[in-house]
């Protein structure tokens, strides 16, 4: 059966109205950003503390402190804390990262007052019970043995190590021994110095009502909080060896990774590089996906991206491929980078990527929750709220010549690391 033959005309995204968050300050100076607009009585609160790996004094402390924060506070057991929060239809996730530890509460506005005492308890008086700490250490020693069998985990660890050095907060990886060395005192010290005393920023999204400010004043505004400096650590030191190939017994796939240090989000080239990355491997129709998955069937997926960290960001390419095609896939990755350096991107491909990105940006500011994620990225990158509009302008204006210049400057292979775990041949080669 024939369908209508006139295909629909595409309409450009002309309007992307980013509703700027409203900025307020609590009485002790903590910045609060609110994004209002939800059909139901729901709220998502995110408290972002400088408390990640850069602020820890021993290996693994920030992640352990984040994970165990909800396991007890003066006057409350872990069961009390979980029971109270969940009883009121809420959920609390604490995530420890390289730079930040974030507390994210999803809940119903009408129950915020009932949850206040418990939340105050875990922010100011988390107790890190001995038993839960021991439990955490034992379970993680077990989990790490499982992870260490996975080529993707091993490759990601190796990559950060060669990028930053084995002692750097971004570069080290946890081992069974390092878990065993964790102590309750270390966790308490970390918590007292960061979550209990340092200045966070707060993003609230959903239905913003009158109950929010008094709630946050009581939760965070009562005592002074300071701007925290990272703990002194070795400077990031990239490895001198550019290739790392590790064999793994019985593996049917190879994890392949490429990476190099890249500019920060506030660098003048960043937005254009973001477009270049999209073309290379940043979306499903990217060159890497089209070539290595859709044309050759070497992999289930291959992506490139940019990981932004406060101290040093990096660009990466990542995939798991069948063992017999490992070398062929690597050769294609280099060929695609070379093509971007040597050939102009066609107007047609660029127009596709422009439209795709503008649609993605429109989605990333659709409603208060998506916008809150975007705002968080802006704040962590130390950017202005105009970033979204500037990015839209860059995407609209960028030319094939600019992209080629950028590829020549940033997609060279001289300082590109290549890490493979699950290398087809048995001998380990460190070239």
């Amino acid at each position, binding site marked *: 059966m024939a369908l209508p033959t006139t295909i629909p005309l595409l309409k450009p995204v002309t309007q992307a109205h980013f509703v700027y968050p409203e900025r307020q300050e609590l009485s002790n100076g903590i910045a609060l950003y609110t994004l209002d607009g939800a059909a139901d009585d729901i709220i998502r609160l995110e408290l972002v503390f400088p408390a990640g790996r850069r602020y820890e004094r021993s290996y693994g402390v920030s992640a352990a402190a984040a994970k165990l924060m909800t396991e007890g506070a003066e006057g409350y057991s872990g069961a009390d804390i979980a029971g109270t929060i*969940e009883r009121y239809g809420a959920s609390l996730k604490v995530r420890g990262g390289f730079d930040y530890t974030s507390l994210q509460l999803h809940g119903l506005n009408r129950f915020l007052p009932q949850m206040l005492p418990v939340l105050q308890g875990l922010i100011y008086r988390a107790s890190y019970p001995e038993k839960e700490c021991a439990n955490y250490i034992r379970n993680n020693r077990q989990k790490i043995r499982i992870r260490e069998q996975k080529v993707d985990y091993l490759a990601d660890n190796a990559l950060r190590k060669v990028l930053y050095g084995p002692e750097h907060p971004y570069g080290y990886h946890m081992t069974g021994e390092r878990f065993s060395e964790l102590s309750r005192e270390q966790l308490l010290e970390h918590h007292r110095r960061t979550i209990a005393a340092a200045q966070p920023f707060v993003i609230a999204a959903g239905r913003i009502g009158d109950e929010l400010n008094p709630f946050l004043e009581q939760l965070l505004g009562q005592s002074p909080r300071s701007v925290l400096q990272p703990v002194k650590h070795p400077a990031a030191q990239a490895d001198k060896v550019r290739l790392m190939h590790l064999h793994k017994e019985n593996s049917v796939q190879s994890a392949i990774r490429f990476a190099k240090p890249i500019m920060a989000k506030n660098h003048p080239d960043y937005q254009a590089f973001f477009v270049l990355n999209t073309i290379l491997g940043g979306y499903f129709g990217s060159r890497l996906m089209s070539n290595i998955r859709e044309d050759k069937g070497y992999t289930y997926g291959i992506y490139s991206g940019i990981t932004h960290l406060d101290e040093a960001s990096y660009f990466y390419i990542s995939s798991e491929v069948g063992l017999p095609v490992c070398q062929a896939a690597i050769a294609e990755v280099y060929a695609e980078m070379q093509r971007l350096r040597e050939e102009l991107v066609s107007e047609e491909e660029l127009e596709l990527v422009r439209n795709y990105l503008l649609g993605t940006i429109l989605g990333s500011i*659709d409603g208060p929750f998506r916008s809150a994620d975007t705002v968080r990225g802006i704040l962590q990158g130390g950017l202005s709220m105009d970033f979204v509009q500037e990015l839209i302008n860059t995407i609209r204006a960028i030319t094939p010549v600019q992209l080629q210049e950028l590829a020549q400057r940033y997609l060279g292979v001289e300082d590109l690391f290549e890490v493979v775990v699950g290398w087809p041949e048995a001998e380990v080669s460190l070239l």
Partner: protein
Amino acid sequence: MISYHHHTLANGLKILVHEDPSSPMAAVNLLYDVGARDEDPGRTGFAHLFEHLMFGGSAGVPEFDTVLQRAGGNNNAYTTNDLTNYYDVLPAVNLETALWLEADRMNLLDFSERSLDVQRKVVCEEFKEHYINQPYGDVWHKLRALVYTVHPYRWPTIGLELSHVEEASLDDVRNFFYRFYRPNNAILAVAGGVKTSEVIELAEKWFGQIERGPANERKLPAEPVQSKARHLIVEADVPVDMLYRAWPMCDRKHPDYYATDLLSDMLSAGESGRLHRRLVMENEFFSDLEAYITASFDDGLFVIEGKFAEGVDRGEAEAALEAELELVRTQFVSTEELEKARNQSEASEAFGNVSVLGKAMKLAYYELLGNAALINEEIEQYRRVSAEDIQRVAREVLRPERCSTLHYLSKQAVLS
């Protein structure tokens, strides 16, 4: 309250529209009533392989993704044992492009040897990445085969073995397409900054001419009632001993579904669930322990999955688990636990209704279950569940003679 409009085209395509004027985006969700349960036992994994082929080009559009991305959209799809679901999210001004793309591949897929060849390889890599090259990767192959003896739920969506995917032919592809990918076997749900009249008009324009296919009458073998406990021990090169227990439970439409779902929540939802609190935190028998249900359209599974803590006596750990199960069979859950479950379901519904894609997906899913109105009614169904109901389903479902137990043990641990 999610308001929506319901319409059916002459060729049987069901359409649901939800207007959300606050969003600049449109979500187009097209659900086909076909899943791994509809596969030939000698050709398992086919529904999922076919999902991949749907992106390999159609009669009028060589590259689905490219056109959609040019319209500022993105898309994906997934296959379960029960259904196959495709979705596109794009700026609402380009709604028609998504409808055209979906209609074009429903009308006539481009059956090419090349596309089949590439996607066979991609799916084989997916099979290796998730089911072979991972510790415990084949656990659901083993567990399904232990619990289901005749029903097609006995294989997972990826398929029983790599060879089934490798041997798929272009004829298989054609037959599958004309049998299942017809308008009368599909549900289209659209949500976002759209107008109902516009959606119906455009759907009529693009899908209206597509011919209906044969009625899809399922005759799946019913699983006989299990009367004796089953036990399987697997020893493999894995780091930690794991326990799986599975009991047959009712299907997704059965009135007891809600009480059974809440029973699994009491045991395991969040950090305050009983199993986590008592057997992971208070008594350290397991390093992880959870209960969940498969929520499938035919009789499903109630599953308990746990990792044994290092050095623990497995017999003692399982006895402690059995004592917890005995508690839910013999005593009512507390008012507080019920209140928690209700507030949790209210919040989860409300947060699930925030995104236009979430709403479009839910509308199509509930329509497939037989009633799109469930999108507004499920929360009430959960509210009606009493402590008595939960105890009753605990007795009914968690019977020792209907339990299948899988011990997935570490070879290293067995040797030492």
